[in-house]
């Protein structure tokens, strides 16, 4: 999701690449769930979620959007198996959304982080060059980021894009107060870039997602589940320019309202690599490897409902030009 324009004279547009942050549910459906959580709590919302998920498994839009991941993660599945796996994926996704809403409405949620993982963050923070926390749309990443400001008394910024008109509410929207971190909209061009680098210069934590392209960004190619995907190169470029280490972490949901932060890699990107995406591909590959290992452990918590393996239009047009 985190990318900035890297083509001169082409301002970063408000165009997501292949994905959308918009919910498939209607305003009424969202409102019913939010009200139910306020009145009956998490269990009541899970109970309603069950038939809703069942219905959604037959929606063409849902089938289309979930198919690319499921086909790559579970190749060769039969018709019934595909439906079963789709139901599991949607069930996990639904519970994650319910948990997020519960966190905002009632404040109930817990994030587990091992002392060893915290020590890694503390040690890296001592270098005082900022920290890039790079994650993926796995589990309940937003909830996990909400506790980062409690770990370290430093500024925390999260790069977060929301489609205009998106009905889905983040936990801090429910709470009616500002989140514990500042939000950087990646569509802001230079403003976004400045906000990111300034967070790092203050010795702060910059949270980014490494699995979705945004705007006119250039991309790195890396194998994921057997085929190449396009990943944003901005995190690695930022790390190269500022010297900040990249902490790769995932936040799988481990129970009702419970998330576990798992640090899987620390990537150091050397300086002076310029702006050629190919120079950053070794680092994007490490991220993709980590992401693949994680989805092998938590196969139903990978929430990218679009074709990650489809080449973005920018790459397709470049290929056409050179053909």
């Amino acid at each position: 999701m985190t990318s900035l324009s890297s083509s001169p004279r082409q301002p970063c547009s408000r165009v997501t690449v292949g994905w959308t942050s918009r919910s498939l549910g209607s305003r009424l459906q969202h409102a019913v769930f939010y009200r139910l959580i306020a009145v009956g709590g998490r269990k009541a919302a899970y109970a309603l979620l069950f038939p809703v998920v069942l219905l959604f498994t037959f929606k063409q839009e849902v089938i289309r959007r979930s198919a690319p991941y499921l086909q790559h993660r579970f190749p060769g599945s039969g018709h019934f198996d595909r439906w079963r796996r789709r139901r599991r994926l949607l069930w996990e996704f639904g519970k994650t959304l319910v948990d997020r809403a519960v966190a905002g409405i009632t404040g109930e949620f817990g994030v587990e982080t091992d002392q060893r993982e915290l020590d890694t963050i503390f040690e890296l923070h001592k270098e005082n060059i900022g920290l890039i926390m790079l994650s993926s749309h796995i589990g309940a990443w937003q909830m996990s980021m909400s506790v980062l400001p409690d770990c370290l008394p430093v500024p925390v910024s999260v790069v977060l894009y929301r489609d205009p008109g998106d009905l889905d509410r983040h936990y801090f929207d429910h709470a009616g107060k500002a989140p514990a971190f500042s939000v950087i909209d990646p569509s802001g061009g230079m403003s976004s870039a400045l906000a990111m680098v300034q967070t790092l210069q203050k010795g702060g934590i910059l949270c980014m997602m490494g699995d979705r392209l945004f705007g006119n960004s250039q991309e790195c190619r890396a194998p994921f589940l057997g085929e190449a995907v396009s990943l944003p190169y901005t995190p690695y470029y930022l790390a190269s320019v500022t010297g900040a280490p990249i902490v790769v972490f995932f936040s799988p949901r481990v129970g009702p309202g419970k998330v576990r932060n798992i640090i899987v890699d620390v990537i150091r990107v050397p300086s002076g690599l310029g702006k050629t995406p190919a120079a950053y591909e070794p680092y994007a590959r490490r991220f993709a490897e980590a992401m693949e290992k994680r989805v092998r452990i938590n196969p139903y918590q990978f929430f990218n409902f679009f074709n990650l393996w489809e080449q973005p239009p920018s790459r397709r047009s470049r290929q056409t030009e050179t053909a």
Partner: protein
Amino acid sequence: MNDIKETLKKALIKELKLEDVNPQDIEDDAPLFGEGLGLDSLDAIELVVLVQRHFGLSMQDQEEARLAFASVNALSAYIEARLAC
């Protein structure tokens, strides 16, 4: 002021790897981004780091940075003012 401009132009060429560009090719009042030097938002990241590395200044205010990045003139004026503080 001229020293700052000269240092700045040389740093821009070196750090941003501007190929086939000499310091005298960069006009003092031409926009750095878009139509002028053609820098993009990723270059803004490099510029902030460049100012810190070469002049020891941390650009913490986003609006100030935006204004300073208008041109070489604007950026050198910003640097001069900050160094005088």
